[in-house]
């Protein structure tokens, strides 16, 4: 094996999020030392996933089939669709394990300055789903940023005609959080969204 191939591998690893040139070098060295137990299975898994990975035709989640596991699972046809910006957000929701419905991944947020319009996001597919599936509620789980909120308002506006309930995640005090450490904007949002006990 030439040293060039090794350098190429290190350079590729360094392009991964969370890794830099030094940590990539360390990771590659670790893999080479454990080539039997770790490197070979990793290479095989990478090759297999690379060959089979695809975006779910329904929701935009990633998986190894045309329909992702969530869309293929009939128990998740609860009538609720949770709209998220990105697959990472879908995974975050799944980690919490409380949402039993299905998802819709937009692939970004509306941003005129970044030239991202509705046609660049999977909004038409979402509207189509409302006609095809028995959807009772669309839950918007988007970031509390200008672009996230714009996208939320846009979707709510677009699907108003479909007669489906639209809700969004609450904003406020995080679980286990102390008020003292919160910024003013969060406290304002929490107070606005207060609930009766």
């Amino acid at each position, binding site marked *: 094996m030439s040293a060039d191939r090794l350098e190429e591998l290190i350079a590729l690893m360094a392009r991964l999020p969370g890794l830099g040139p030094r940590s990539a070098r360390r990771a590659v060295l670790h893999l080479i030392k454990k080539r039997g137990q770790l490197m070979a299975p990793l290479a095989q898994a990478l090759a297999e996933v690379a060959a089979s990975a695809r975006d779910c035709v329904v929701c935009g989640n990633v998986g190894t089939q045309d329909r992702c596991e969530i869309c293929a699972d009939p128990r998740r046809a609860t009538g609720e669709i949770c709209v998220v910006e990105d697959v990472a957000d879908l995974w975050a929701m799944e980690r919490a394990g409380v949402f039993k419905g299905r998802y819709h991944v937009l692939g970004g947020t*509306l*941003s*005129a*300055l970044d030239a991202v*319009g*509705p046609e660049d996001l999977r909004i038409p597919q979402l509207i189509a789903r409302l006609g095809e599936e028995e959807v009772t509620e669309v839950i918007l789980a988007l970031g509390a940023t*200008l672009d996230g*909120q*714009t*996208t*939320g*308002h*846009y979707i709510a*506006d*677009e699907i108003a005609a479909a007669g489906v309930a639209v809700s969004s995640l609450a904003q406020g005090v995080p679980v286990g959080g102390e008020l003292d450490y919160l910024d*003013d*904007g969060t406290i304002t949002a929490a107070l606005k969204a207060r609930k009766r006990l």
Partner: protein
Amino acid sequence: MHLTSLALSHFRSHKAVRLTLDGRPVAIHGPNGSGKTNLLEAVSLLSPGRGLRRAAADDLARRPETLGWRVVADLAGAGAAHEIELRAEPGASRAVRIDGKAAAQVALGRLVPMLWLVPAMDRLWIEGAEGRRRFLDRMTLSFVPDHGAATLAYERAMRERNRLLRDEVRDPAWYRALERQMAEAGAAIDAGRAEAVARVAAAQDAGGAAFPAADLEIVAGGGSRGSGPADLAVALAEGRGRDLAAGRTLTGPHRDDLAAAYRAKGMAAAQCSTGEQKALLISLILANARALGGAPILLLDEVSAHLDPDRRTALYDAICGLGVQAFLTGTEAALFAGLEGRAEMLAVSEGPDGSSIGAG
């Protein structure tokens, strides 16, 4: 709140300056170009925004070294004390630290309200609305610290909307989504400004007659509109066609204007004499400080030189009566006659190694 210390490093003409202050007004005198206004500018940066000259971070660095600059200030008062550090490396934007922790610029607005009057504002009532709007916003920020955040939110949404207008996008839902957010932030801006005008007006009435009272009115830009978020959203939606033709947003608080009239004469500020216009501004700033109960820091650049001796005495008496820390500049020590013993006097001169400051 007042400054108890101010340290500048490589800031404009000041290579290294350290001042200890006791909370009384500060009278700074020295020849033209010695660095008096630079001191005021450093203080003005302890408030959100780009300071009294609206300078970019890079322009504040001492030349020719351009090593970047640093301003450190200690604030005390009302049972609290804070340390503010501002710095910028060459080519980088300004970084803010409050009590040793990185902070957003808008957070400065909650520490100390700050008001200023600089010679560039002499034509405030005659020139375009932008200067008056900025004056109104500084007044508002002194009463409503969240005004800065509302303005930022409004401008961010408007930039997006303006881009849609320029690109001739015709998707009504996209406009509505942005206009809702502009309306919400815009209504907060409107409410803040209205509160500021009302409080300054009330403080003027109680203030006596050394400086003329002004009647203030906010004039809605791009046609009148209601005051709530729903009204603003309607105004924006109705203006879409016109805005598309213009390629930018023509309605909203970013187009508002501040009108002032000399109350005793019933005359618009723009029609008053130069001296009267200046007196009106001073009157408004004093009323603003009065309404805040003596909390703000005032920066009055070259104000004394344009006042006759009676008015000057009245100004000094008003400042001392309010108990505010006012930073005043003037070319000669004689301009501050009557302030001796009631203010700290600083003499600024230009040396071979930049500005130097001594007790005046």
